[in-house]
């Protein structure tokens, strides 16, 4: 599989998280997957400004020439995208959310009906959209309800991205278990 790991860890110092992801990448590569990790804090992009140029002016791409283009390209050419983030104030990091907002050029502004609800129309072939998965780190103050809330929101986001959230895992599990879960997809 082609796998993109989006690393939403905002801090350099919290090396445990980055170390976990680099160990995971090695294990996945050993299992014959092609893996690219994008460390979002090192990429250059501003917050989505809500201008909708990516829908009505430069269809399919952010009008700002920033690294969100690189992230969009990696995501739409993957089989699996791992959204990896420490839990901060009960949710994915702002760094991760910034780049998730900038994935909207991958869908179309038109609304369609999917499972009885309005959702954005696909821009790419529905089969082109990668599976999503969540890899989270519980930080002090994070409880199971937080993990449930994040997973529930993410399932919605993946539905809007014409795909689904394959699993939600925590980094207190050995990398072998995450690798196994991916091998089973």
């Amino acid at each position, binding site marked *: 599989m082609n796998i993109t790991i989006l690393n939403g860890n905002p801090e350099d110092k919290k090396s445990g998280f980055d170390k976990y992801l680099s160990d995971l990448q090695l294990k996945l590569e050993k299992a014959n997957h092609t893996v690219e990790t994008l460390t979002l804090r090192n990429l250059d992009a501003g*917050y*989505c400004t*809500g201008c909708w140029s990516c829908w009505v002016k430069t269809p*399919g791409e952010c009008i700002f020439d920033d690294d969100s283009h690189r992230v969009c390209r990696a995501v739409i050419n993957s089989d699996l995208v791992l959204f990896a983030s420490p839990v901060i104030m009960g*949710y994915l990091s702002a760094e991760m*959310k*910034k780049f998730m*907002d900038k994935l909207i050029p991958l869908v*179309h502004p038109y609304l369609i009906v999917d499972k009885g609800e309005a959702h954005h129309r696909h821009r790419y072939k529905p089969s082109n959209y990668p599976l999503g998965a969540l890899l989270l780190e519980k930080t002090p103050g994070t409880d199971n*309800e937080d993990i449930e809330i994040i997973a529930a929101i993410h399932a919605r986001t993946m539905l809007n991205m014409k795909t689904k959230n394959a699993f939600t895992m925590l980094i207190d599990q050995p990398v072998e278990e995450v690798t196994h879960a991916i091998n089973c997809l």
Partner: protein
Amino acid sequence: MRLTVYNGSPRGKAGNTEVMLSKVIAGFSSITDPDLKIIYLSSAKQRQEACKYFAQSDLVLLGFPLYTDAMPGLVKEFIESLAPYVGQDDNTNMAFLVQSGFPEAHHSRFVERYLKKLARRLNAPYAGTIVKGGCEGVRLMPDSMNRKLFDGLREAGADLAKDGKFNPEKLKILAKPERYHPILAPVFKLLLKIPVTQSYWNGLLKKNEAYEKRFATPFRE
């Protein structure tokens, strides 16, 4: 009564959130005149100072548009800046407004659950969340078409001033349609296919001479 309103729209004063928050504020002010501070989180400068007004307020109202089924990234940055208040006693009463372009309110219920938990995380009384879908065109419509929505928002603001919280039953009515009944799905499907529902986007695409490119797929290799 010190009321701090956080506008979490990336479009700031030019967005639909602004219009909707202004109606809630108007309703609030019809009951009691607050010492009002409005902060635009789209401004990097205001965002960095935003957390210091949190503790100084008696009530905060945070409003934002739904972005990928949750809060916009810049709102998450603001929420992270509230971390020092976690575990402190007697934090400020918190009210929320979430609006989206989807016709149904249901899409915003998932982040509503997050917001309720956020208030608990901050030991803050939870005043409730106004949820409303179908809001993409609010700022462009004549006021007559928004009357019912605006009346509901004003009433919610008045309830907030009177009771310190929204009235959950009234919020349910304001949120309608919550979801479409499965039996109606085919009707709904048809409705979205008629040209008028796409005309808003098509108008913008044509104005920008981008209509022919509307199905572009620039990133697929």
